[in-house]
């Protein structure tokens, strides 16, 4: 039996299929796909799920239950591409918990927002905080700043780890920080030191958000920013604990959670 999850983000769209072999369901298979988003979330959903189904050679009709999440999740359902739509918060919580049942806090930082989600011992959603009003502390901040220092979003974390003398960024606002970094870059500040300052500022914003719900062990980081080693290391230092890395690509956790919830809905119905 096949259960699907579709997560439309701001930059990428993901699809996950959980394959439950007939009979004894001991060994679940997980199939994943990620694409760059299209202007329309319905188009993105169609393309990413279509591509994944093609990869594994299965038709849409064989999907028992599909859950959509992320931007335009309601429209994806209205267009008949999913049976239900569930918030990103619930999906990230469910995905993280299914991969690692000891998880109690999920820090999810995507391209347009940052969320800190608290999960109970049974995987239930306890509380969450979200910032989607200000780019500081989201993936967008890292993206803007990477461009300012002339590097790739993916490379920023590795550059930061090479820093010998971290730059202290005084602006929180992405727009002001851009001017500040440019100013020091023109005066010969090293890209590595600036990258370290940028990662530190990012971690500061995430910590401010996390303090509002409280952090409990174990902590997992999901979303694209989880791939930034410097931000993760800085957060670990501030929290005084190791952050668990999901066994799947951190950007797939929302879609995986949607598929987990799809499977649960099917079983309960």
């Amino acid at each position, binding site marked *: 039996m096949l259960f699907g999850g579709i997560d439309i983000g701001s930059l990428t769209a993901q699809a996950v299929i959980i394959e439950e072999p007939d009979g004894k369901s001991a060994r679940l298979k997980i199939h994943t796909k990620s694409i760059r988003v299209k202007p329309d979330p319905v188009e993105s959903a169609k393309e990413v799920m279509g591509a994944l189904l093609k990869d594994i050679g299965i038709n849409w009709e064989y999907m028992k239950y599909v859950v959509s999440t992320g931007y335009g999740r309601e429209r994806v359902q209205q267009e008949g591409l999913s049976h239900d739509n569930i918030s990103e918060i619930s999906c990230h919580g469910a995905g993280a918990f299914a991969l690692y049942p000891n998880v109690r806090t999920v820090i999810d930082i995507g391209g347009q927002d940052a969320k800190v989600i608290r999960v109970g011992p049974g995987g239930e959603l306890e509380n969450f905080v979200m910032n989607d009003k200000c*780019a500081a502390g989201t993936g967008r901040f890292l993206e*803007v700043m990477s461009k300012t220092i002339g590097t790739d979003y993916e490379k920023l974390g590795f550059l930061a780890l090479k820093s010998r003398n971290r730059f202290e960024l005084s602006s929180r*606002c992405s*727009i*002001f920080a851009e001017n500040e970094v440019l100013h020091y870059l023109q005066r010969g500040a090293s890209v590595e030191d600036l990258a370290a300052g940028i990662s530190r500022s990012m971690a500061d914003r995430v910590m401010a958000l996390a303090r509002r719900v409280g952090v409990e062990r174990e902590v997992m980081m999901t979303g694209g920013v989880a791939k930034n080693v410097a931000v993760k290391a800085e957060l670990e230092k501030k929290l005084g604990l190791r952050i668990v890395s999901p066994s799947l690509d951190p950007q797939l956790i929302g879609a995986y959670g949607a598929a987990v919830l799809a499977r649960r809905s099917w079983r309960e119905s």
Partner: protein
Amino acid sequence: MIVLGIDAGNLFSKAVLLDEDCLLSSSISETTGNVCSCVDSIVSEVLEKSGVTREDVKLFAVTGGGSELIEGLYLREDDVLCIAAAGAYYLPDVEMVVDIGGQSITSILIDEDGDVVDFMRNDKCASGSGRFLEILSGAAGIPIKDLSNAVELAENPVKIRSQCGVFAESEVISYLNEGKKPADILWGLCDAVAGIVAAQARRFPGVKKYTITGGVARIDALTSRIENKLEKEYLKFPHDPMLGAALGAALIARLES
């Protein structure tokens, strides 16, 4: 007595030369690289324009974000006090001066003597500032100086929902991709900025008359919208509003001497 006032702002430096009540000359230049050399050049410019020599100037006063970096025999003045002084001097009836600069929005409450009673400032977030306006207007493909004219052409205005400049920029770009006209987007932008400014100014509810200074106050499309949103009487600053703080610096220096 001839007094020279300078406002070394984050984005622009301004200089004014005052002889009693007469504004002899003024100069505005983008603050680039070295603040000192930028200030030197606008000082030479105001002197040259007015035919006044350096020796004729009795007092030199400086204010603004870059004022600490400026060397020489300058009197340093606080910029909130300068903005308030300029508002109170030229418009004795105003009870509040709202200043919209390159990187900040400041609402200053003043009493009948022109003294500062209280003020509120946002300089942590670019939302609603000159920089915000410049970035978003640029994203829509219209230079900020043409903003007021462009807004006139709006037919089906859109709403800018993001407060954050970075997110608002994406919003502007997606509106353009949807085929919305720049004029309609800029209408929404002006409305959004006016809303942000008015929200701060409303925190001083008792005020009846106010003025607006700072570079953004040059844009009529904005001041008229702020006026509509705030149910108070708007008095137009009699000089170029961008010179507000520089004029205030000169006025305070004159009083103190």
